[in-house]
């Protein structure tokens, strides 16, 4: 980033709290790996040394929703599983984002069937849809970069004083 070069010259930088917080947020997006089917394999591949999701600060896959900012829904969501996905999403602290990874999550994909939810945006607010069946790891990284761009534009107070209404409505 050239930050270290700048710091050795002047010893300080000026910026705004908003941009520092946004920078910190977007550089350490901790994913919740909601691996439900084959897309999960590509999601795992994105974390391996070849594709290395750590380059974007997102290598910390947490298996508890309490420590995550980003839910990567990787796989076919059935009506039965939808309740579980939503419950886990509800347990994630704000601010949080969602990637719909692959055709199944985005639109039901090839499962045009009674048991598969035809797009998780029916019950989750999706930020980025990823095409592919399954998408290659590069595609997932691209989605992550898109999310980072989105987070970079947020202001710290965007997520303050959120009303509790949402929580009351949720089914927990």
């Amino acid at each position, binding site marked *: 980033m050239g930050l270290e070069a700048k710091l050795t010259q002047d010893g300080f930088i000026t910026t705004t709290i908003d941009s520092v917080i946004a920078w910190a947020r977007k550089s350490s997006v901790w994913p919740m790996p909601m691996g439900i089917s084959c897309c999960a394999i590509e999601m795992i591949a994105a974390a391996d040394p070849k594709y290395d999701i750590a380059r974007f600060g997102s290598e910390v896959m947490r298996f508890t929703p309490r420590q995550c900012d980003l839910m990567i829904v990787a796989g076919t969501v059935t009506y039965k599983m939808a*309740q579980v996905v939503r419950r886990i999403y509800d347990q994630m602290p704000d601010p949080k984002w969602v990637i719909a990874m692959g055709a199944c999550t985005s639109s039901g994909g090839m499962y*045009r069937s*009674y048991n598969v939810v*035809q797009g998780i945006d029916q019950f*989750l*607010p999706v930020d980025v849809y990823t095409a592919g069946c399954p998408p290659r790891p590069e595609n997932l990284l691209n989605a992550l970069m898109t999310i980072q761009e989105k987070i970079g534009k947020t202001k710290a107070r965007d997520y303050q004083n959120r009303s509790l209404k*949402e929580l009351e409505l*949720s*089914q927990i």
Partner: protein
Amino acid sequence: MNLKELITDKVKKKFGAALEEVSDFRDDLCLTIKNDQIVQLAKFLKEDPELEFVMLKDVTAIDWATRKKRFTAVYHVYSFKLNYTLRIKANIDDDPPVIESVTPVWRSADWYERETWDMYGIKFINHPDLRRMYMPEGFEHHPLRKDFPVLGIPGSLPLPHKAE
């Protein structure tokens, strides 16, 4: 003596007219039995010392949609002694489709019959625990029936309301 002839002869001798059809399609022997005789046939096939069909491999069904006897229950049984898989069928009337459970004979029929009940709505009498297998409890339809739409019936499966 040919294996298929052995099985067919024995069953024919025991069940007579209750054996509705014997077919041999692509080297698979299939016996169609009157549906009220299914448990007796199961017991016979399992306990006969020359046959010993001790293993039930699968229970499923067919929905013929337009036939008078709308459903057919299908069983696949296996004998280690003969190293042979036999298919048994039983035609079932619609409204309501009912057949006796073979769980007293083969314990493994338990989940197979639950699945068949879930998907086709065939009631198995004397089944120890006839709950749905895949679909949620409270779902009112049977998805593998021919009159069930592929995309399901809107609103029949609950979704969480959309989060903001």
